[in-house]
């Protein structure tokens, strides 16, 4: 394949070559006999690519240019265009950032020296995954899109099953593979229908299709299934928790931080095709979004597995993004520009934010697991003292993901809230404002989930001796986390910058409604927000100083925690994660369906009893698995047709001949 270049070296070309560089970064390691150098080379290449790619994407984002490359390929599906427009450029940012950070993290987290057998494949497929995602954002030919899409899905699968000796990993892999393949099947239909509309496999231009045809609804439906399955919107989320929990942590970071966003990208892209979308589309998106947000975080509260909790919160965040998108779409349908702008801004900004704090948290969990050797939060505790830096960074991530000021999570939710409140002065769809309390509930549950996580992992005293060798993470692991924490804080205290990031993308999607005045207005508003954020930090500093001053004057002593009179306090008496969330979970138990074992204490001197409550995958275990079992039984019954009796086989031939003859005459 060679590129017919138009024009000299330009940012788009740089981004393109950066994407390809990431893909090739893992290749040298395959051929090096000695383990280690390959990984270093890969990390270096990926980071270099990020250094080239991020600025160029920013340039493309601000200079509202759209660059087109024509890829000469030998396949009979029409020309293959590679285009970078503001929307693609916006989504390119997390791809480069997260993949680079992850590859650096891997050097410390999955050292080639310890994982001789798996490291090569891991590094290679990691690069493949990242670069396929980057190319996906540039692809404008449906077939090429599906090809890179599937490469992405498959390399993610191979990354996921890195430790395929473990049964649960294999199971997670199969569930993921089936889910993603079903999604791809939907996408095949999607692109075929698009081709039937436009006459070629090139993706249609923005606003070029009418939404009022049965085919249009079918297209959007297939897109919702195909892309929703990748993004993990309920009810297509079944694969997500186990997959993200069982992958190596830096892979989980990329999967959760970036790969889910590819699904969202597909939805955004699809919705740009149509002008005048009907209300139904926005309504469906909104409902599914808010449901995912609520149930996702409810599931997260119930988890005991560190990474499962994070994965479920990914469902929540995707839900918030989808809600924003749906609300914006409703705004388009009801010609309410404020709603469109704020919904879009909220959704896009939350995409960016989530791709900062979620990788931060996943990398942090990687560091923890690396130190402790388990994922069960009930066995952790007291890590704060042995790994203070990780603790601090993880705290930043947790606060950010709860959408609490002064960090970035708050900004996107703020925009969304504002959009919803603004509905009060809208002529139609005033009831959308009722989403605000639901979002608030989501926020409250997020606080529960992440105080539980943070508390039971880092605080208190160690609950068990699963791993005596707690140790602070190495610099290669801390650096990426620090970088993300910095970004979270930056966007948190200077949200105006973030708004300038998303505005071009919105302008590309809905050119009519982004006027400088609007942008400036909201920029000003966010300026006030950042001011109060700064004030908050200042106040905290002030109080700290005051307190330090007092402490300097009074005697300070240290004793064990007061046991309220009880003398023989042990570590196992602390409030564990399960205990912490028990009250909150009991409110939602209708949906969560925990497996609860409560022993009945009888007699004066009851014997030792065991008590546990396990969260379950309600949808997967109550709907999907029974369905599969049923199909299996039906098929087993039908398989009797192949009963090994020759005369039956001849009879089949005879019958076929007979039927065809009757049909023919």
């Amino acid at each position, binding site marked *: 394949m060679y590129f017919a270049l138009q024009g000299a070296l330009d940012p788009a070309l740089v981004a393109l070559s950066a994407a390809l560089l990431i893909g090739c970064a893992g290749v040298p390691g395959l051929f090096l006999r000695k383990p280690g150098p390959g990984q270093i080379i890969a990390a270096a290449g990926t980071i270099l690519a990020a250094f080239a790619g991020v600025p160029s994407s920013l340039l493309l984002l601000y200079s509202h240019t759209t660059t087109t490359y024509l890829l000469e390929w030998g396949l009979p599906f029409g020309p293959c265009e590679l285009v970078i427009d503001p929307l693609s450029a916006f989504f390119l940012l997390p791809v480069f950032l997260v993949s680079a950070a992850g590859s650096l993290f891997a050097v410390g987290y999955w050292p080639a020296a310890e994982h001789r057998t798996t490291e090569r494949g891991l590094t290679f497929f990691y690069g493949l995954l990242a670069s396929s995602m980057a190319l996906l954002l540039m692809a404008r030919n449906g077939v090429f899109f599906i090809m890179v899409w599937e490469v992405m899905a498959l390399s993610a699968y191979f990354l996921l099953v890195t430790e395929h000796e473990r049964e649960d990993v294999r199971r997670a892999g199969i569930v993921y593979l089936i889910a993603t393949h079903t999604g791809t099947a939907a996408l095949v239909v999607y692109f075929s229908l698009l081709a039937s509309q436009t006459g070629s496999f090139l993706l249609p231009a923005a606003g070029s299709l009418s939404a009022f045809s049965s085919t249009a609804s079918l297209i959007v439906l297939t897109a919702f299934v195909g892309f929703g399955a990748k993004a993990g919107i309920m009810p297509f989320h079944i694969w997500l928790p186990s997959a993200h929990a069982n992958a190596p942590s830096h892979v989980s970071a990329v999967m959760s931080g970036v790969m889910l966003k590819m699904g969202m990208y597909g939805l955004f892209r699809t919705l740009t095709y149509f002008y005048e979308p009907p209300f139904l589309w926005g309504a469906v998106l909104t409902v599914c979004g808010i449901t995912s947000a609520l149930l996702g975080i409810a599931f997260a509260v119930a988890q005991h597995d560190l990474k499962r909790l994070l994965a479920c919160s990914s469902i929540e965040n995707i839900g918030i993004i989808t809600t924003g998108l749906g609300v914006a779409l409703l705004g388009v349908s009801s010609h309410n520009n404020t709603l469109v702008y704020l919904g879009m801004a909220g959704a896009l900004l939350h995409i960016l934010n989530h791709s900062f704090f979620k990788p931060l948290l996943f990398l942090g969990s990687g560091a923890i697991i690396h130190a402790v050797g388990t994922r069960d939060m009930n066995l952790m505790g007291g890590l704060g003292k042995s790994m203070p830096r990780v603790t601090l960074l993880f705290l930043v991530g947790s606060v950010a993901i709860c959408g609490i000021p002064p960090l970035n999570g708050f900004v996107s939710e703020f925009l969304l809230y504002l959009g919803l409140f603004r509905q009060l002065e809208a002529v139609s769809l005033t009831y959308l404002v009722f989403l605000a309390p639901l979002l608030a509930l989501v926020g409250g549950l997020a606080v529960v989930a992440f105080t539980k996580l943070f508390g039971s992992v880092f605080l208190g005293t160690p609950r068990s001796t699963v791993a005596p060798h707690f140790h602070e993470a190495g610099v290669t692991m801390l650096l990426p986390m620090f970088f993300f924490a910095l970004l979270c804080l930056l966007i948190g205290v200077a949200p105006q910058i973030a708004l300038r990031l998303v505005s071009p993308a919105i302008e590309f999607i809905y050119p009519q409604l982004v006027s400088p005045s609007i942008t400036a207005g909201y920029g000003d508003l966010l300026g006030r927000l950042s001011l109060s954020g700064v004030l908050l930090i200042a106040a905290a500093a002030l109080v700290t100083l005051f307190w330090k001053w007092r402490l300097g004057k009074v005697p300070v002593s240290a004793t064990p925690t007061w046991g309220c009179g009880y003398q023989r306090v042990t570590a196992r008496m602390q409030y564990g994660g399960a205990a912490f969330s028990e009250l909150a979970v009991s409110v939602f138990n209708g949906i969560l369906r925990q497996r609860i074992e409560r022993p009945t204490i009888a007699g004066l001197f009851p014997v030792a009893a065991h008590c546990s409550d396990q969260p379950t995958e309600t949808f997967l275990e109550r709907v999907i698995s029974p369905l599969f079992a049923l199909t299996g039984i039906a098929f087993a019954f039908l*398989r*009797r047709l*192949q*009963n*090994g*009796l*020759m*005369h*039956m086989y*001849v*009879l089949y031939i*005879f019958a076929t001949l007979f039927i065809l*003859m009757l049909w023919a*005459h």
Partner: protein
Amino acid sequence: MITLADQLLVLVLLINFILLGTSRLFFSIRAVAVQGVLLGILPGLIHPFSWHLVGITIVIIAVKGFVIPQLLGRAVRSAEIKREAEPFVGYVATLLLGALFTAFSFGFAGRLPMLPEHQNYMFVPASIATLMAGFLILTTRRKVISQVIGYLVLDNGIFIFGLLLAEAMPIMVEAGALLDLLVGTFVMGIVINQINREFSSLDTSLLTSLKEE
């Protein structure tokens, strides 16, 4: 001549019914042999004389009438089986079905356009009826031998139709006929012997280990 040919065809049909009705393997083998001989004679009746024709006739009579029956007979003797015990479908039912199918084939043949000179022959119905008889035997019998016989009958049916084309495209017909005979004789003969060695019986019910549980 025409009438003679038709009478022979009627005999062929009768032999079909005999085959459907009998359970004794030796008997059915002989019946097939007779059918083969009849088919061998037929070309001579409908086509003008030519040495080529004589050649065909001799070959066919030799193979269909003597070689194959010999092979089958030896197989049966070595396997020491006398009769087709418990077929999948009873003999009466098979006979009725055979009658039904014969009627059907006459009806079917009536609806096909024919050359005027073939108009009042019963070649087409006879061939289709024989074909179906072969199918019936194949689908109702249990013993390998019976199934081979079924295949041969089916083959005879095709051969009868081939006679109509014998002068138009002789090579084609002969090639087809001979190749079928090749399959019928050697390959099946070999396989039957192998089966006999493996299972020391020619009951296809034993050949049912390959299936879906």
